[in-house]
């Protein structure tokens, strides 16, 4: 169980957004095909399906890589990821011409995002890390 710590950290990191992906996918599919919300779903899903889970995995690997003096509390470490993801998401949304993500909306969602990420990392990713003996 002591082998491949980065691989275990990556797997523990991607587990949460991968599971949430089902909820996200269901929400956007219902909005698009049931309520006919005019949004390009194939462009919309690029970010939550490809970028977010991988960044969660890499962010958890980074936590393992940092020595204990430079580590923030785990929940805070996760919340900081929002500050990286939000501009990437906004840039991608602009490039793909998605109107559901605007700068104003990102600023409104930022405090909530920080709290949600803090709780998700502290309790859920933390649980997976403990289970896989990461860090």
């Amino acid at each position, binding site marked *: 169980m002591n082998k491949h710590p980065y691989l275990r950290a990556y797997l523990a990191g991607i587990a949460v957004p991968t599971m949430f992906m089902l909820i996200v996918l269901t929400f956007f599919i219902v909005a698009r095909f049931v309520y006919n919300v005019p949004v390009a779903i194939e462009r919309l899903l690029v970010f*939550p399906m490809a970028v977010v889970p991988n960044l969660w995995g890499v962010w958890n690997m980074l936590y393992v890589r940092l020595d204990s003096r430079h580590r923030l509390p785990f929940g805070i470490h996760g919340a900081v990821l929002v500050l990286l993801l*939000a501009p990437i998401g906004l840039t991608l949304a602009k490039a793909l011409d998605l109107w559901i993500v605007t700068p104003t909306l990102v600023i409104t969602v930022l405090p909530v995002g920080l709290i949600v990420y803090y709780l998700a990392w502290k309790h859920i990713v933390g649980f997976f890390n403990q289970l896989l003996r990461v860090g």
Partner: protein
Amino acid sequence: MNERNDEKLRELLRSAVAAVADTELKQDLWPRMLRKLDEQTIRASWLDWALIALVSVWFFLFPEVIPAMLYHL
């Protein structure tokens, strides 16, 4: 010829793989498993509950942030 080869192969396998004498468990592992599961229970502090309540209120007051939040999850 084939039977002799088979016998030789069996002998080689027997000599290479040591026989396992005692396959019985020495103790019941279930209590240890229960202890491990208890250790991994999620314990939320009052601050975490307050944050959960705050986020719920936020989503209730500003439902338009929900798609943007899901986009970043």
